[in-house]
């Protein structure tokens, strides 16, 4: 009789369900439609970022520049809109900027062979610095008034669900489609699993890597659009927060292995759900800020430990040219 294969996703999902049940039983008003919607809404932007990060991590990379990309491109868009540019035009410029950032990271990683973790960390710093120096002066940009679709994205609802949640669902479906149903998606898995083997079998490995970072940068831009609509502005201070680690938390917790080649959008959803339940429950329980951070980081540490037990570094993974992140 074979032992039931313990997958990390299963563990996390069970944990999320267990937490959910405990909170539902002990906290009043936890299990109301309103609270559950608020719960998902509060992590929808994190989830959107997690989709981009998930894709890159499956391809055995990491993108630490996502939050910087989101903050800089959207702050620039909003400051141009305030200066009188039509909002749609400004958005196009913002998307182009995100594209350039993604291309920059991707080219450095794929063609200059610089480890992803350093490239994207530096890219984030460079972008944030030049943004503050050249693109916008004030650290909180307000959204322009009177753009109907934008207001609807921030405050409207579709079938009773707030639009940020809808945006998260639509993007999740799209990324899932790309990963499961397209040739590009299969290539990402192949390259993440074993880059050298993928290259020998004739995959265009370098362009593939560039494409991943372009996609994650564009997803970061879209996350920024949703965020700016939801809180009617963009605060550049988000860059200094722990948000990028929360994104990683969602991805790793969901069970996408840092050694690449494994995982799917479902993992991102599970991870996002767990973080959402956790944050919501801790806020209801009125746990202090410091303790919340401690709990979050302990869980991340636990998830990474479980990851390396379930997906041990073996002969095959240690021989890869890209090295571990």
């Amino acid at each position, binding site marked *: 009789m074979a032992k039931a294969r313990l997958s990390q996703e299963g563990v996390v999902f069970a944990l999320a369900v267990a937490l959910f049940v405990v909170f539902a039983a002990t*906290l*009043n*008003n936890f299990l*109301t439609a*309103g*609270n559950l919607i*608020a*719960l998902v*809404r*509060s992590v929808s*932007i994190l989830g959107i970022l997690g989709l981009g990060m998930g894709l890159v991590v499956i391809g055995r990379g990491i993108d630490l520049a996502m939050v910087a990309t989101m903050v800089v491109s959207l702050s620039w868009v909003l400051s141009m809109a305030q200066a009188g540019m039509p909002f749609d035009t400004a958005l196009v410029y913002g998307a182009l900027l995100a594209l350039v950032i993604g291309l920059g990271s991707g080219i450095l990683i794929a063609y200059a062979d610089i480890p992803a973790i350093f490239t994207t960390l530096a890219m984030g710093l460079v972008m944030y610095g030049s943004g*503050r120096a050249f693109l916008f*002066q*004030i*650290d*909180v940009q*307000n959204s322009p008034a009177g753009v109907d679709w934008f207001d609807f994205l921030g*405050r409207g609802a579709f079938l009773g669900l707030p639009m940020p949640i809808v945006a998260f669902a639509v993007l999740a479906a799209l990324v899932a489609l790309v990963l499961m149903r397209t040739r590009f998606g299969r290539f990402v898995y192949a390259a993440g699993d074993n880059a050298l083997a993928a290259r020998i079998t004739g995959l265009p490995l370098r362009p593939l890597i560039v494409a991943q970072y372009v996609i994650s940068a564009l997803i970061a831009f879209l996350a920024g659009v949703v*965020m700016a609509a*939801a*809180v*009617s*502005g963009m*605060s*550049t*201070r*988000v860059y*200094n*927060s722990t948000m990028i680690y929360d994104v990683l938390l969602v991805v790793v917790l969901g069970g996408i292995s840092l050694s690449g080649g494994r995982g799917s959008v479902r993992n991102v959803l599970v991870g996002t759900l767990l973080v959402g339940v956790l*944050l*919501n429950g801790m*806020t*209801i329980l*009125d746990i*202090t*800020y*410091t303790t919340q951070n401690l709990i979050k980081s302990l869980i991340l540490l636990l998830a990474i430990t479980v990851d390396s037990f379930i997906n041990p570094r073996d002969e095959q993974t240690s021989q890869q040219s890209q090295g571990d992140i």
Partner: protein
Amino acid sequence: MKFRTILAAGLMALGLAGAAHADDGLDNPSRNPFYDGLKGKRVVFIPLAMGFDLTEGWAAIMRKQAADLGYTLEIRDPNWSTDAGTRALTALIAEKPDLIIAHNPDVQSYARLLKRAMDAGIKVVQLNLESVVPTDAYVGADWSRVGYIESDALVKQCGTGSGKSGKIAIIRGQPTAASDLYELYAYKQTFAKDPAIKIVSEQAAQYDPAKARAIMETVLQQHPDLCGVVGNWDNQDVGAGAAIQAAGKANDVYVVTSGGGNQIGCDNIQKGLLDLIISYDVPLQGNAINQQIVQTLLSPAKAGESKTSYYTPLTLLTKDNIGPRTCWSLDQLK
């Protein structure tokens, strides 16, 4: 005879000279020490970060006076990073400017360094956020008083005899900053006096409106009959206001906060996102800090020898008393 004429002429000449002197006015003997004492001095400002209403406002006013009086004002921007701030301070202790103006991210981080700076002979003025170490001067809000005013206003809205639930949510900013700690103490003191008041939530949003919004959404789900919110900073608490408005409770929940009195704050009161802002009035604070800079630079006292505080005046902003000229915008100050 001849002698007398000469004497008379001499006296007349003297008198004329005196009269002539009276017509030319007087050279004020105290001017020169004032200007000479300031010329070429070096002042360095370490804010939490540039790029937001408070620090940009202070800096605009400080720059003007520095240009006027011929001392230099440099700004070392740590951009919300306490690490970068401590590095900047450490470097400054070696550089020995005449005066450091410190805006403390929390009560501890810079404390020892500020003391070291004073020991090295550099004068230190703290601006609006104190550390536990008193320096040559502190200019800024009296956070305890801000806290008492805020919590008194909430007790009036939600306490005994108001007929409301008495449920209060506290939104903290950075739990280690002076503003946060002193305000929180005042809140707790005031709320403890009224048995009708119940604190149902006490969460930190770290100056992030998105976080304040998420917290408030959750709290409202738990306590639909919430009566009041008191927060640490208007730029952050506007997120809580947005959550309250989205839940359709803008008229039921009273939101009290404090801020620099920037136009955006006034706009948020007009939009109904915030109900009361205790404003510490950045333009006024800018003038007070300017006066303190001059006084500290001219003072013969050595660094750390005399320690003073000046708590800047507070204004209460509500929908009923704000007009088009109540709040300030950065362009006015520049």
